[in-house]
């Protein structure tokens, strides 16, 4: 029983997992009440999704919501009567719920009542409005490739306002998404995002897969976070099968996760510098990142560490010589990044651009429930490695990086601090790596149940919920941290100029593919 105030949740059961999870079923009346209670004690909405369980004992759709309360995850579900196909919206309690609910309608056809925005979110024109891909009776016929011309963006309030539509294709080598600006002169009055361009139907693809195929798919939802996704997926599977993952494997998983964090932060620091005109930063950081990726190929077998983390352990081991080399190169990298940090901190031209730009105040960040790099840069002190440390982080004292200004400079500062912390963690992991196996095959006979995975990826928290039946995946819902963070970008750019948008966007560097599924 997590908290005496949550009297509504007395029927919830605690899972026997290291990660504290309570789950239970609510009915219509308590659905918004539970959310309000959790909000009142400072909790966050982690994910919201649905299932078609009409042919099971539930005899209806199930809407799920996972929250974070002060003592752990609260995973709620509620039956939705198929005849009504509606449930109360949580968007007034948690703003992030709005897009999740719009998506749930696009995919499952159940409507959140009590909101004023019922526009589609992920569906453009690929499937008809009266069909729903996550329903068991989805025919997959009448699919289309027409462009979506019917989406109504929020109207400009005056004819003097200039509207600039940008995307889905952008000028650089980057994922597709649409940004609809309303500007007066150069100043941004409103930014409205529209995503869904990289929607690949991942949740439906998961249905029926075996564990190995699921792992292969999970690692390719958001390629730059493949380790975080693979580990989160593996956690969920291992919970269901009650697997004992060898200790050495857990430590190697953390090593891979920290190297993924390093690679992305190095890339971002260079790209942010470049977007402010400091090409020197891009060249220097690209060189450091490339060396890291080549090391990954040589010692781990894949530049970006795809398919290294598997349910049951990891794919390959490290020799003593390899660990020693990585220790040495880690020291070299630390010195190089230290030099660059000094140069960038004192570069007047760069500071001019990044300080006081793209601000999300700590107060607003708390209202939006931000976490991850962008959240920590706005004073939101959430880091799963610190607060809900799974093995081996419970034996490593991770130091959280935070800043309070919430501007582009703060998001750079947090990345720099995390680079040094990840290098320190790498050094400690390599030094204390326990002996033993790196893989223990899972017992998948008659596997049945639900599992949750939750990993601090480099952007933020990667959440997985999984239901398995007879050793196969029945339903899988991955939740990228970008769901929570994309709405923050819309606010961060307000009153800044259009020309600064690429720089602000880059300072967040959120996932389109991880979001669109």
């Amino acid at each position, binding site marked *: 029983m997590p908290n005496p105030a949550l009297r509504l949740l007395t029927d919830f059961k605690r899972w026997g997992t290291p990660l504290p999870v309570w789950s239970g079923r609510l009915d219509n009346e308590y659905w918004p009440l539970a959310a309000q209670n959790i909000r009142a004690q400072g909790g966050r909405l982690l994910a919201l999704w649905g299932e078609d369980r009409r042919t099971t004992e539930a005899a209806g759709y199930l809407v799920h919501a996972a929250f974070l309360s002060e003592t752990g995850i609260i995973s709620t579900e509620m039956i939705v009567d198929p005849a009504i196909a509606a449930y109360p919206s949580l968007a007034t309690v948690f703003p992030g719920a709005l897009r999740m609910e719009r998506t749930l309608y696009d995919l499952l056809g159940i409507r959140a009542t009590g909101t004023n925005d019922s526009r589609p979110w992920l569906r453009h*024109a*690929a499937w008809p409005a009266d069909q729903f891909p996550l329903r068991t009776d989805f025919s997959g016929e009448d699919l289309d490739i027409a462009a979506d011309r019917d989406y109504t963006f929020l109207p400009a309030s005056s004819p003097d306002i200039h509207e600039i539509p940008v995307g*889905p294709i952008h000028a650089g080598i980057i*994922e597709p998404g649409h940004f609809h600006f309303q500007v007066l002169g150069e100043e941004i009055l409103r930014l409205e995002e529209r995503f869904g361009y990289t929607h*690949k139907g991942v949740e439906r693809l998961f249905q029926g897969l075996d564990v190995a195929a699921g792992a292969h798919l999970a690692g390719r939802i958001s390629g730059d976070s493949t380790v975080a996704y693979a580990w989160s997926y593996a956690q969920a599977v291992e919970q269901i099968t009650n697997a004992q993952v060898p200790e050495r494997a857990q430590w190697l998983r953390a090593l891979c996760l920290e190297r993924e964090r390093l690679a992305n932060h190095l890339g971002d620091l260079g790209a942010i510098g470049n977007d402010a005109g400091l090409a020197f930063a891009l060249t220097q950081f690209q060189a450091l990142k490339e060396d890291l990726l080549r090391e990954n190929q040589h010692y781990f077998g894949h*530049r970006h560490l795809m398919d290294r983390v598997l349910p049951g352990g990891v794919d390959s081991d490290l020799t003593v010589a390899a660990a020693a080399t990585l220790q040495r190169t880690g020291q070299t990298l630390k010195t190089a990044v230290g030099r*660059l940090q000094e140069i960038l901190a004192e570069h007047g031209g760069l500071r001019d651009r990044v300080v006081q730009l793209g601000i999300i105040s700590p107060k607003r960040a708390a209202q939006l429930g931000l976490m991850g790099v962008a959240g920590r840069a706005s004073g939101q002190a959430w880091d799963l490695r610190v607060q809900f440390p799974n093995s081996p982080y419970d034996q490593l004292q991770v130091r959280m990086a935070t800043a309070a200004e919430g501007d582009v400079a703060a998001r750079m500062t947090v990345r720099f601090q995390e680079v040094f912390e990840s290098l320190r963690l790498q050094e400690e992991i390599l030094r204390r790596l326990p002996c033993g196996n790196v893989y223990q095959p899972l017992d998948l006979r008659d596997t049945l149940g639900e599992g949750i995975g939750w990993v601090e990826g480099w952007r933020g928290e990667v959440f997985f919920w999984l239901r398995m039946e007879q050793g196969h995946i029945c339903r899988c819902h991955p939740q990228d941290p970008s769901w929570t963070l994309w709405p923050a970008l819309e606010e961060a750019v307000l009153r800044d100029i259009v020309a600064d948008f690429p720089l602000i966007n880059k300072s967040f560097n959120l996932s389109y593919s991880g979001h669109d599924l």
Partner: protein
Amino acid sequence: MYRILRAALRLGRVGKTPPRTRRDPSSASPTGFHHSLGIRHVDAGSCNGCELELNALNGPHYGLEQAGFRFTASPRHADVLTVSGPVTRHMVAALQDCHNAMPEPRKVIAVGDCACCGGVFQGSYAVMGGVAKVLPVDLQIPGCPPDPDALLRGLLQVSGERIEN
């Protein structure tokens, strides 16, 4: 400024020089593409892995511009269209518009397993299953993701060069 110069000199040249190449007499590429390609990239639903490798081409280890190649912001300035991802239904129209905006002669390269055949997303209701379902493809570069060396070799091939070794 002094520290920037010192850091740049300390970095020096990294990686191998671009591979030695010679003109491939059997190539049907236009002579105008020789050592000169404008490349427009479109992400048609990839997981972003291929984009990481494409971006790496601009880094000092590969130095794409040494080969005479560069990425352009507009398809109107491009000779080659590189496409990643299984081509989601939601990207078909934009991808076709982009291709139509390119002046002739133009080539299309499918980058990565997803662009070649749909990859791990094959069979999904939301994807076409590869660039060839939407555009005429001149070259496929498989991989998940293909590393920058493979990308560079593919671009050299499209420009009419053959690696000499």
